[in-house]
């Protein structure tokens, strides 16, 4: 996948105080362990006709064996 998308409006970074991150903890967002990623992700599904958005999320949760998942806007309008 592509790099993290930048906002549409160009935003300038203002540095208040330089600080170095420690690599003893945390991860680069693009290389976090897969189990962690799968529970901290956005998935863009291509919904097919038929089942409701709710049904789609339910079967997605079952398939991936996720405890929590939800869609951000129903596709029923």
């Amino acid at each position, binding site marked *: *996948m592509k790099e*993290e*998308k*930048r*906002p*549409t409006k160009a*935003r*300038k*970074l*203002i*540095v*208040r*105080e*330089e*600080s*170095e*991150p*420690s690599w003893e*903890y*945390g*991860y*680069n*967002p*693009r290389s*976090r362990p*897969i189990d*962690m*990623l*799968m*529970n*901290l*992700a*956005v*998935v*863009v*599904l*291509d*919904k*097919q*006709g038929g089942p409701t*958005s709710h049904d*789609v*999320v339910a*079967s*997605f949760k079952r*398939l*991936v064996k*996720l*405890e*929590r*998942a*939800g*869609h*951000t*806007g*129903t*596709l*029923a*309008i």
Partner: protein
Amino acid sequence: MTGVLVVLTGSATNVMSYMHNFKKEYIGVGELHAAVSESRLRKTMKELVGRIYQRPPVRSAVSRRLRTREVFYFDLLEMMDRRFLFRAGTESGTYARKLINDVGLLLGTGAHMVELRRTIDGPFKEEDSHPMWDVAASLELYRRNGDDSLLRKVFLPVEMAVSAYASVYIKDSAVASVCHGANLAVGGVSSFEEPIAEGEDVAIKTLKGEFIAMGKAVKGSSALAKDKTGIAATTARVVMDRHLYPKMWR
């Protein structure tokens, strides 16, 4: 209806409410109840671009009060007898079905929507979307031989979902306290994206760019750049695991 359906997983679901206001694009088929020339249809569709009034349909999830929504574009792609293919870019919460009904009302013929597909939801486009069998295949590959390359194409980092919000990068020493729900003090801020207005929703992130929480800016950009004390942002919704970073407060 088919197309782009954005799903958040695990603790990312905590920021669901910040994902509702994205602009949408739809492609669909409408059917006129009487023949109309292409130029008349095109002209009528143009009239519906801009701010329009809509009452949510009888079967809808929200209160049925008349409200206004913005239609950014509404284009005729193809016409065949009474059926027409359209593309519409709209503000979140615009009912495409109602938009097609309005076309019929303005033309005096009546019209209804036959098919609808969402092609864009905020930063997420049809090209980036995966049918369920893609998800199944990527899982299968991973479970069989530990290859997570496809899985990483399907499961995108939560950071991509909040890319529309200005980022505030905080020092490692402040991460755990924000994870525990504490407000962010200016002393904890390393850098931030401007402009930020007072009261604006911001994405609080680590120096590595990991998304920690959504917050509400208490200070705007200029105060945030120079103030020595005070609260930079209140913490609204925490996504990061509170044990990922060590506690560094006394």
